[in-house]
């Protein structure tokens, strides 16, 4: 169940953005005044875990918008992390960036600081769509950012895209996808626009400004994406994630899905180790306040019962290409019948003692676990 052979990963949450995108429900603020204190607090938080995690093989600076950090802040962050924690020699170092920040200087800085993987929040190559998403860059800027990363020598670049946008047709979407492929990205994340409660988009939906995709439309787009990318050799290794080759799958994110331990630092960051999950306060101010007062910023924690752990394994396993070990189903009532039904319906394949979801299976991954209870 837990992939203990893998080393843990380290996640840093940078809670700052240049503006708030109306669909986003990640935690971030749009002022930068607390950046300095955040960094200092983060160093203190890192101290709390000294000795608990001996060696990481991935670092993921996410957010928020990490590319917003200035040279000094980012350098000092990296220096601090490298001083406190040990990383394996082949560790994956990812930083997320937005096209409007990724100018040649930044690309060089990333390179110099040791990053070997960049995840770029492009979202779309269509200016109308980018305006709708209230992104702070144009299609042209995105292309320039990609060029400049390539020139800086990055060959492991991931592009984040969104589909299912209001007014977007399937051919609009495939055009964006095609543009992205021209850059031969090592990695692609294709997310269907999800309207989360409390976001401006949710309010617009309530006001009837736009309607989310119908089930069948969402499904058609998902399958078209999967087919398009499969035809071009990409590996569909998680519901929304594709890799050009095996080695370009995101090592860090996979830890979330295969239940490898990880440590998350920064406000609203989640951690998982030794059967326990914990998370920090979802507020930069409170985060800083806690750490400056010598208190822990952890807001909640839970120790997983075996039943909870196996529910997680099911839920996560159905989202990934590796799928699930058949042994997970051995003690479940009627599992054989259900798996047979799922096979016949083309939702999973059974191979070498594993249950492997197909793209159609990915589409119903949220409810598959419940069948086994």
């Amino acid at each position, binding site marked *: 169940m837990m992939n203990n052979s893998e080393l843990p990963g380290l*996640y840093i949450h940078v809670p700052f953005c240049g503006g708030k995108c109306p669909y986003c429900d*990640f935690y971030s603020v749009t002022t930068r005044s607390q950046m300095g204190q955040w960094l200092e607090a983060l160093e203190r938080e890192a101290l709390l875990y000294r000795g608990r995690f001996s060696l990481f093989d991935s670092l993921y600076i*996410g957010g928020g918008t990490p590319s917003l950090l200035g040279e000094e802040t980012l350098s000092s962050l990296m220096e601090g992390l490298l001083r406190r924690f040990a990383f394996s020699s082949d560790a994956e170092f990812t930083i997320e960036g937005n096209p409007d920040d990724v100018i040649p200087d930044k690309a060089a800085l990333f390179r110099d600081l040791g990053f070997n993987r960049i995840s770029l929040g492009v979202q779309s190559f269509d200016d109308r769509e980018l305006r709708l998403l209230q992104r702070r860059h144009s299609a042209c800027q995105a292309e320039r950012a990609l060029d400049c990363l390539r020139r800086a020598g990055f060959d492991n670049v991931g592009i984040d895209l969104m589909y299912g946008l209001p007014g977007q047709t399937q051919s609009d979407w495939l055009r964006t996808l095609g543009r992205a492929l021209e850059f031969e990205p090592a990695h692609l994340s294709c*997310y*269907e*626009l*999800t309207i989360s409660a409390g976001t401006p988009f949710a309010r617009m939906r309530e006001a009837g400004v736009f309607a989310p995709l119908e*089930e*069948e439309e*969402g*499904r058609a787009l*998902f399958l078209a994406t999967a087919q398009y990318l499969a035809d071009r050799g990409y590996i569909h290794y998680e*519901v*929304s994630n594709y890799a050009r080759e095996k080695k370009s799958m995101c090592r860090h994110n996979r830890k*979330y*899905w295969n239940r490898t331990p*990880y440590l*998350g630092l920064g406000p609203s*960051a*989640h*951690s*998982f180790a030794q059967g326990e*999950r914990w*998370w920090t306060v979802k507020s930069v101010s409170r985060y800083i306040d806690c750490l400056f007062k010598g208190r822990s910023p952890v807001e909640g924690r*839970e120790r997983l019962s075996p039943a*909870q752990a196996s*529910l*997680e394994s099911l*839920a*996560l396993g159905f*989202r990934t290409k590796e799928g699930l070990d058949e042994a997970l189903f051995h003690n479940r*009532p*009627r599992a054989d*019948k*259900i798996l*047979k*039904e*799922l096979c*016949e*319906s083309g*939702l999973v394949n059974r191979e070498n003692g594993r249950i492997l979801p197909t793209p*159609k299976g*990915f*589409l*119903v*991954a*949220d*409810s*598959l*676990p*419940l*069948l086994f*209870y």
Partner: protein
Amino acid sequence: MSQIRNFSIIAHIDHGKSTLADRLIQHAGLVTEREFRDQILDTMDLERERGITIKSQTVTLPYTDKKGETFALNLIDTPGHVDFSYEVSRALASCEGVLLLVDASQGVQAQTLANLYMAMEHDLEIIPVINKIDLPSADIERTREQIETELGLDGEEAILCSAKEGIGIEDVLEAIVEHIPPPKAQKDAPLSALIFDASYDSFRGTIVSCRLFDGSLRPGDLIRFMSNKAVYKVDEVGVFRIQREPRPSLSAGEVGYIISGIKTVSDTSMGDTITLDTHPAPAPLPGFREVKSVVFSSIYPIASDDFQDLAEALEKYKLNDAALTYQKDTSAALGQGFRCGFLGLLHLEIVQQRLEREYGQTFIMTVPSVQYRFTLQDGGTVTVDNPQYYPDPAAIIGSAEPYIRANILIPERYMGAVMSLCMERRGINSQSTYPTPGRIEISLEMPLAEVIVDFYDRLKTVTQGYGSFDYALIEHRESDLVKLDILVNGEKVDALSLIVHKARAREWGVKVCERLKKEIPRHQFKIAIQGAIGGKIISRSTVAAFRKDVTAKCYGGDITRKRKLLEKQKKGKKRMKMVGSVMIPQKAFVAVLKSDDE
């Protein structure tokens, strides 16, 4: 020492028994004005919600008559609905007399007669009381006449009363002490006490309600249950005065309760005789007639681990509802459960709700069935109340189902609609009479099976709530029966099988398939629902698959959020039963019962 009078109040439903009991209780000053509420003996939530009595209740009232003599009156308020007649018959075994109430505006009705017969069987003194004389529609003369002609009692002697207005209460009380004989009891004989009711209390064990015929009893005595020889030491005895009220002793002729730390639920059985271990009675009291169940249905726990829990709940429940019969039953689709017998549909509904509310049980209840009779080639006959045990069709040479005589009282204008409903339900030999201008009473014969599934709901709908209906079983009659099987994704769900009349089989097949289609949620794959008779498919429907529910993002490392959502959905699934790979909601199993317009 007061004299004793033991009596029940019996009547047709709603004729005012519990209201009269209220007046007698108030007359005795048993409750303060603040404590009082209407139908105070209807203590169960279900009784109050439905405005009917479900359980008989005993209460001991002090009374001083006109001559200044003191009495202890043991009153038992009984239910009027036919489904609870077993409560009445057991109450009567503890009495020397009854008040037979007749609603002056309704006159004598089916249960007036049925209950009178029961009282006569017990050789009880019968005091007719005409109630609700305050109503403008009261017809006292006609009611007197009916009492004479239909009941064969003295109509002129009947006491005029309005339980609601408190008119005639003194007369009722005087008649009780004057006409109802005191119990014939020998205090010095060995104890013999008849158990007529019981309830289970998790702290004190089984609390037994009994009538002492001979002897006496006090705390510390060793009692013995005569049927199984179980012996217990008495902790407490007492009488019912709305609450239980402990007494130093109970003696012959009295009605009261015994607490003796009875933790083995099965030791107590209705109709058993309690005697003293040291000085036993030579023979037990006659006890009660067996209940004859009319309607049958199986119940299965939702989670198979809960079987034991359900078994214990049923055992405790049965202490307080002797009319329920049950035995273990196994379904291939639903696992271990119980086949239960009920006295009617209302009884079934009450049992279901009480088990849920009082015992926190959640279970699946299958479509009710009647008791069919099959004649087989080898000359034998079998009685089948569970479609699962339908005999091999090739071996059947004759089949029969129970018929009832139904009485339906409606405003004349609904005649057409009601007749077509009755014809649809295979009604025959109908006769109509006009008891009062504008109202019509239809009497006809129908298969009971046609009545137990949504007939009453439909009647109410077509008469806009103005139809009343009661019935009595008449006999088994020849009938062309088949077994309808239901398959879900090719798998036979035995708990959904039905025995139906051949002429209505297709209609049933279509109905069940359509119902299930509405009740079974969409799955990740499509679900075929089929109705089949002897392997031949006669109806089908399909539940389309849902094809997308995945959320695009798995919020970074926040797995907790995702898992909590699943845990919540998992709880919601508690009311589903897995059959093969399909989740069938609990309510789907009885959904076929519901009228189409619901």
